């Protein structure tokens, strides 16, 4: 087994200060290896996007603050790295793809220029060479008529094409790690399938690791090798995709699985929703954050916060209850 590309240990991120302080990410640990796709799943407010941003130290500070933990990239702690060395990593050895391609592309510059920029900056290519490479990359992400489209502006692209351009940009410097934050949430389902397959194939080709942030359990099942399930800023369960789906061990994961309508099951059954409302991060209970909505909750869950513990092998969960019954 390869050593991890990225290892996150006990990461914590807070927003605000004083009484209004909110811990958006709390004691999050995971790792990802070359060629592997790790999905971080969770609902809004679960801390999955903040986790993604903090990996490249992109959490807006203030109000945000990474207050604890280590982010080891090939063994080097990014939280201790200088601003200059972080910059040499961003877009070069770790690339990021965001949900809304229109707001992450510069509307005033051509797509080709934006793909060429990291190559010129990190790859030390001349502009001419970088443009040549940008054209190749656009072809590689299957944008038709790439030679002409390289001179187009983002508004001339459709949503799917913009996300393809973002992928080209992310892959430009052959990164070791790509972080994709809800990369297809804004796209139609037929285009989503194309984009995710493309991303998966291209990362496989270069043996890069992929961290896929999503709320869609179908997307996770199709593309992820391993999964971290987050709830209220914490990882509540993690393991291989097969284990998580075939044998979910945390009541929240179980609840999610039961609450989605599925195309591969008989229609017409009532769904089993998770009761209650999403957690308020500013007023989390002392014990387990899922306890108020949990059907397995016990007295202990109100007093203590369960730690992430192995269920055998690399399957972890943070729960006291026996969910087998």
């Amino acid at each position, binding site marked *: 087994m390869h050593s991890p590309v990225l290892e996150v240990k006990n990461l914590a991120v807070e927003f605000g200060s004083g009484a209004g302080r909110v811990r958006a990410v709390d004691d999050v640990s995971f790792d990802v290896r070359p060629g592997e796709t790790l999905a971080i799943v969770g*609902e*809004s407010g679960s801390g999955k996007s903040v986790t993604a941003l903090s990996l490249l130290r992109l959490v807006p500070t203030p109000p945000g603050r990474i207050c604890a933990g280590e982010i080891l990239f090939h063994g080097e702690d990014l939280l201790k790295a200088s601003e200059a060395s972080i910059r040499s990593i961003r877009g070069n050895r770790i690339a990021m793809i965001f949900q809304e391609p229109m707001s992450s592309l510069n509307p005033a510059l051509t797509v080709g220029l934006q793909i060429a920029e990291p190559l010129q900056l990190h790859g030390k290519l001349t502009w001419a060479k970088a443009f040549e490479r940008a054209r190749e990359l656009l072809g590689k992400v299957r944008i038709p008529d790439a030679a002409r489209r390289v001179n187009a502006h983002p508004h001339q692209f*459709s*949503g*799917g*094409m913009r996300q393809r351009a973002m992928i080209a940009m992310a892959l430009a410097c052959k990164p070791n790690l790509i972080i994709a934050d809800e990369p297809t949430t804004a796209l*139609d*389902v*037929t*285009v*989503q*399938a*194309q984009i995710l*397959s493309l991303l998966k194939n291209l990362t496989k080709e270069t043996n890069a690791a992929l961290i896929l942030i999503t*709320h*869609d*359990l*179908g*997307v*996770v*099942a*199709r*593309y*992820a090798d391993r999964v971290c399930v987050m709830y209220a800023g914490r990882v509540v369960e993690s393991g291989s*995709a*097969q284990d998580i*789906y*075939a044998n979910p061990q945390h009541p929240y994961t179980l*609840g*999610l*699985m039961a*609450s*989605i*309508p*599925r*195309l*591969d099951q008989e*229609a*017409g*059954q*009532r*769904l*089993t*929703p*998770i*009761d209650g*409302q*999403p957690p308020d991060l500013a007023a989390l209970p002392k014990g387990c954050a899922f306890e108020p*909505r949990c059907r397995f909750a016990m007295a202990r869950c109100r007093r203590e916060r369960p730690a992430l513990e192995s269920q055998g092998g690399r399957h972890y969960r943070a729960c006291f209850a026996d969910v087998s019954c």
Partner: protein
Amino acid sequence: MSHAEPVTTGAPLLRVSDLKVHFPIHDGVLIRRRSGSVKAVDGVSFEVRKGETLGLVGESGCGKSTTGMAILRMTPLTGGRIEFEGQDISGLGARKMRPLRQRLQMVYQDPYGSLNPRMKVGDIVGEPLVIHGVTGTQDAYRARIQELLRLVGLRPDMAERYPHEFSGGQRQRISIARAVALNPSLVLCDEPVSALDVSIQAQVVNLFQELQERLGLSYLFIAHDLAVVRHVSHRIAVMYLGRIVEIAPRDMLYREPLHPYTRGLLAAVPLPDPLAERTRVHEEITGEPPSVVNPPSGCHFHPRCPMAMPICAQRAPELTAIGNARSVACHLHGAAPALDGQAAA
């Protein structure tokens, strides 16, 4: 509890025939001239029966929301006819539509944008009663609001609070309470759960189904999530670029989709099962939905269709009945009804 079959007797509640909604495109800065039109909805026909949910699915820009707006008479029609409870409403203006709105209500996608932040929840839910002058006595009005809140799973004392105090799922419950306040027969739901978190979606979907059983409601359920639509609908219409390409009872559509677009759409939805996904053949639809401003000739889907034939680029296929329950607009299934033995189904 299983999803009960609807009582489908009598005339349809809503009948839409050859509905067309075209928006003009203007050119020029000083002298504006009409240079074309966007055929957002281009000859759509369907029925919604009493107690039934008709799902309307399609990708962005296919015209599903515009169809909904046209039925509510909130956008001018270019052509076609809409009959609601046996009455032709296609020519009605705002004033003549008003009494009918008691019977025809709507729930929107965005539970934040569709509730007035300055109104108390009780007033929001009671507003339709006030507008239509059916409040009755002060006590009866208050009792009705409490009844409505209870009906959608909220506490009666929440009437005194403001929308910002509620989560997305609770706000959508408030919208639903407002929609059913006047005992409508048809509720038009435009992406009613797509803004909600997965764990909350199921709560709201179940509420829709409970209310259908208790109040005998019919729904036109517009959404892009094929799994949710399958879950709530009795019949489903699939739209592509302003036209219906296939309409069929739920299980028929999902088990044996006839139109290549329906097939591709279903294949594109990832299943929440890693083992099944690993062995599944992913037939991807290539390309992206084309622009509505300049749609392809013939069948709008032909440039992306894996089964396209020469005729598909020349002539648009008519929506043709296959058997007595389903219709499809595809040259593969037109003239030869017994093409693959599914006609008798």
